[in-house]
C-alpha cells in the first residue's frame, strides 16, 4: 500500500467513524451500513474478477451461503450469530473452491455461464424447498416452514445483539460500526493481496497466462487461492447482512442484486484497489439521492440508473478510479511534479508503480 493510499484510507476510516455523530438521520446509517456490506463483497469480488481476470459471477452464491449458514445455525441450533460468522466464512470458502475447481479449464464467458448457473441453481433449490421441516415443527408446531424457508425466507434466528446493549434507538449505530469493521478488514485484505506476490501472480495470469505459466506460476494453485481468499469475507458479509436484517430469502440471489454489485465494480473501476469502494459509495449516494428526490415516476429510477452505468462504461472504460488517476497524473504533470507519459496508462502499469 502506497503512502497516498494509506492516507486516504485513514481519512476515510476517520470520516466513517465520525459519520454517525454528524447529526445524520438513522436511515442514512442504514443505507451506509448496507453500502459497507456490499462494498466488502465487491472488494473481494474484484480480486477474482478484476485482479485475477476470472469472469466469475458466482460471488452472489457465496454471499447467500454465508447468509443462509447464519440463518440456519441461528434458528435450528440456537447459536449466537457471532459464532456463526467464521463457520459461514468457511462454508463460503468450501463452495468457492468447488466453483474454482469446476472452472479451472474454462475461460471468459464460459466461466460466467457456469458460475451464474450455480447461483441460479441455488435460487431454484431454495425456491422449491417446500417440504415441511420437522426442525421448524419443534419451534412452532402450528406452522409449516421448510428447512431454508423456501420462497418466503427464514427469520427468527437472532441478530448482532446491539439492541440489548445500546437500546433500540442506537442499535443501528452498533450495526453500522460492525459493518464498517468488516469493510475495513475487507479493504486491508484486498490491498494486501493486490500488492503482494500472490496479487502479482493473479495479474500475470490475467494479462498473459502463457508467459505466467512459463515462469512457474501455477494456474491451479493461484485460481484456488483467489477463489478461497475472496470467498471468506464475501460469505461473512452475507452472514452480517442476515444478522442485520434478521431475515434471509432467495431474493438475495436475484438479478437485481447481481446487477447492482456489477455496477459498483464497473463504475468504480475493475481491477483497481479503490475501484469497488468508490463504485459502492457513488452508487449508494446516487440511489439515495434519487430516492429522496423522486416521488413520482419511480419506475424510471432503474432506467436512469442503467443509463448512468452505461454512460460510465462508454465514456470512462477504466471506471471512476481510472479517470481520477488520469486527472491526478495530469495535475501532477501540469504542476511539474511528474513527467508526461503515455495517455494510455494501464492498470498494470499503475499497480507496478505503486509496488515500486
Amino acid at each position, binding site marked *: 500500500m502506497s503512502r497516498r493510499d494509506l492516507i486516504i484510507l485513514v481519512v476515510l476510516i476517520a470520516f466513517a467513524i465520525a459519520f454517525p455523530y454528524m447529526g445524520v*438521520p*438513522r*436511515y*442514512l446509517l*442504514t*443505507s451506509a451500513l*448496507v453500502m459497507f456490506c456490499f462494498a466488502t463483497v465487491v472488494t473481494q469480488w474484484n480480486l477474482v474478477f478484476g485482479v485475477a481476470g476470472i469472469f466469475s459471477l458466482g460471488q452472489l452464491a457465496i454471499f447467500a451461503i454465508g447468509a443462509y449458514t447464519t440463518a440456519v445455525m441461528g434458528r435450528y441450533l440456537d447459536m449466537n450469530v457471532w459464532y456463526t460468522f467464521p463457520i459461514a466464512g468457511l462454508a463460503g470458502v468450501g463452495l468457492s473452491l468447488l466453483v474454482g475447481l469446476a472452472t479451472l479449464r474454462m475461460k471468459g464467458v464460459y466461466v460466467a455461464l457456469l458460475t451464474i448457473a450455480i447461483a441460479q441453481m441455488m435460487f431454484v433449490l431454495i425456491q*422449491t424447498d*417446500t*417440504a*415441511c421441516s420437522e426442525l421448524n415443527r419443534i419451534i*412452532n408446531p*402450528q*406452522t*409449516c*416452514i*421448510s428447512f431454508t*424457508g*423456501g*420462497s*418466503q*425466507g*427464514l*427469520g427468527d434466528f437472532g*441478530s448482532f445483539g446491539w*439492541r440489548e446493549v445500546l437500546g*433500540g*434507538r442506537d*442499535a*443501528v449505530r452498533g450495526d453500522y460500526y460492525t459493518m464498517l469493521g468488516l469493510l475495513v478488514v475487507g479493504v486491508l485484505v484486498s490491498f494486501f493481496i493486490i500488492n503482494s506476490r500472490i496479487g502479482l501472480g493473479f495479474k500475470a495470469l490475467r494479462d498473459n497466462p502463457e508467459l505466467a505459466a512459463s515462469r512457474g506460476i501455477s494456474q491451479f494453485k493461484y485460481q484456488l487461492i483467489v477463489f478461497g481468499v475472496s470467498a471468506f469475507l464475501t460469505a461473512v458479509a452475507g452472514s452480517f*447482512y442476515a444478522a442485520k*436484517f*434478521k*431475515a*434471509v*430469502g432467495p*431474493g*438475495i440471489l*436475484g438479478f*437485481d442484486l447481481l446487477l447492482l454489485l456489477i455496477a459498483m465494480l464497473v463504475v468504480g473501476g475493475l481491477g483497481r484497489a479503490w475501484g469497488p469502494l468508490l463504485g459502492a459509495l457513488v452508487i449508494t449516494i446516487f440511489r439515495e439521492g434519487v*430516492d*429522496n428526490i423522486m*416521488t413520482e415516476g*419511480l*419506475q424510471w*429510477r*432503474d432506467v436512469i440508473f442503467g443509463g448512468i452505468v452505461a454512460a460510465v462504461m462508454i465514456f470512462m472504460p477504466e471506471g471512476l478510479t481510472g479517470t481520477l488517476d488520469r486527472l491526478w497524473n495530469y495535475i501532477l504533470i501540469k504542476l511539474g511534479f511528474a513527467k508526461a507519459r503515455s495517455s494510455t496508462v494501464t492498470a498494470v502499469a499503475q499497480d507496478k508503480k505503486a509496488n515500486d
Partner: protein
Amino acid sequence: MIPITRKKLSKKQKFEQELEANGGLKGTTRRGFMTTAGAVAIGAVGVAGANTLQAINNGAKAAGDPIPLGAMLPFTGWGGADAKNFEIGIGMAVEEINSWGGINGRPIELHIEDTKNMSAEDVTKAAQRLIDRFGVHAIINGYNSPSVRAEYDTISDAGIPYIHDNTQYGHQFAVRDNPDKYWNIFQDDPSEYYYGPGLLYFLDSLEKSGRWKRPNNKIALFSGSIDYATTIAGGIRDYMDQFGWEFSIDDVVSQPVNDWGPSLVRVREDPPALIATTHGVPSDQTGIVTGFAEAPTNSLLYVQYALQLRSFLDIVKESGEGVFCSTTIGTLKDEMGSAFGKRVFEKYGEGATPEVVGQVYDSVYTWAIAAARAGGTGEPYDGVEQNKKVCHFLREQIYRGVVGTIKFMWGQAATPYPAETNDPSLGMPTLMMQCQKWQDPVQYVSPDLYATQDWMNPPWMKG
C-alpha cells in the same frame, strides 16, 4: 337477483348493478344491523367512522401542525398493482379525515416509501426512512409479507403504531410471544390460517340450510408447499373433526404443479365430498379446474385465491362455473361497501379496485379514531407513552368499516367471522365467492348477510 346479461359491463356498472341488487342506498334490513354494529363506528352510509371523528373533533377544522403518517408500498415490485390501490385507499381516507377535522384538529400528512420487491432490506430501510426522515407517528400499509417481519424491530424501537395486511399467522405468534416488544404492531386482517376453518363453517352453513348435502365425509386436500398454503391446510386439519370430516387425500404438492393427472386419478378412485386446494398459484390451478371438468366427480371444488382473477376465469371458462374460493378481507358489497366502491370509481376511475382499496382505507380510519380518542398521536421514540394510549384504544375498540368489523383478538390480528366469533358485528367476514357465470365477476355467496347471490350447486353435481 342480478340480471344475467352478455353485454360487457364496465367495473363501475357491475358495482352499481350489484348495489341495486342489494337494495341500493334506499335502506334495507341490513341497515338495522349496520347501525348497531360497532361501539365506535356510528356509520354514516359509505363514510364509516366519519361521524365518530366529527364528534370527537367537535367542529374543529384540520389546521395545526400536520401529523405525519407513513405507508410502505411495493410500487416497483411484483405487488405494484396492489400498491397503487393501497395508495388510493390510504390517500382517500386521509383526505376524508382531514375534511372532518383531522385528528383533534390536526391534519394528517401522508408520506410514502417504495418497498420494491418487499425484501427484508427494502422494507426495513423504508420503515427507517419514514421514521427518521419524516418522523411519522404511525405506519399503515397493505402487505409486505416477503420481508418476514424484518421491519418489526425498527418500528417497535420507534414506538409508533404499525398496521398492516400481511395475512400471516406468524404475526400472531410473534406478538403473542413478545407482547412487550410488539405492543404497537397490528394486523388488520385475519391470518391465512382462517381460510381453513372459514371453509368448513361455510360448508356447515350450506348443509344446515339444505342447500347442499354431503355425499360422504371425505375431503381430498391438496396443499401448496409454501408456508401460506400449508398454514391454511393446517386450519382445515384443526377444525375438521368438529364438523365430522376426514381426509381421503392429504397431500402437499410441490410448486409448480404442471400435471394434476395423478392427483385427479386418485380423486376419481375414491370421490370425496370436497376437493380443496390451498395451493394459491393461479397458473397451477388452471390445471386442476380444467382437468377436473373433464370427468367431474360428485364433489365440490374449492381453490385458493385464483378464482378472483379475471385472467383465470378467461382461461378456465365454463370449467370454472360452480368452483368457489374465499378471502379473509375484501370490501363488502353491502350498502357501505357498494357506496364506497361507487365513490372510488367516481374519484379514481375504473383503474381502481375497490375490493383492495377498502382494506387500507379502513386501517387509516381505525388508527385515526383511536388516536383522536387517545387525545393525539406521539412522535417516534419520544412519543412512546402517547402511542401506547393510541394502541390501547386500537386494541379495545370495535370499528365497522367497508371491509366489515375490525376487532383485534390475540396476537393483535383482526378477528375472523365466523371462525373466531359467531357474531358478525364483532368479526371480519371470511367471504366465500363462487363463479356462477365465467363471463361475470365472482359472486359473494357467504356469509348470507353480505352475499350478492345465492349459492349455486355446481352444474356437474348430481341432484
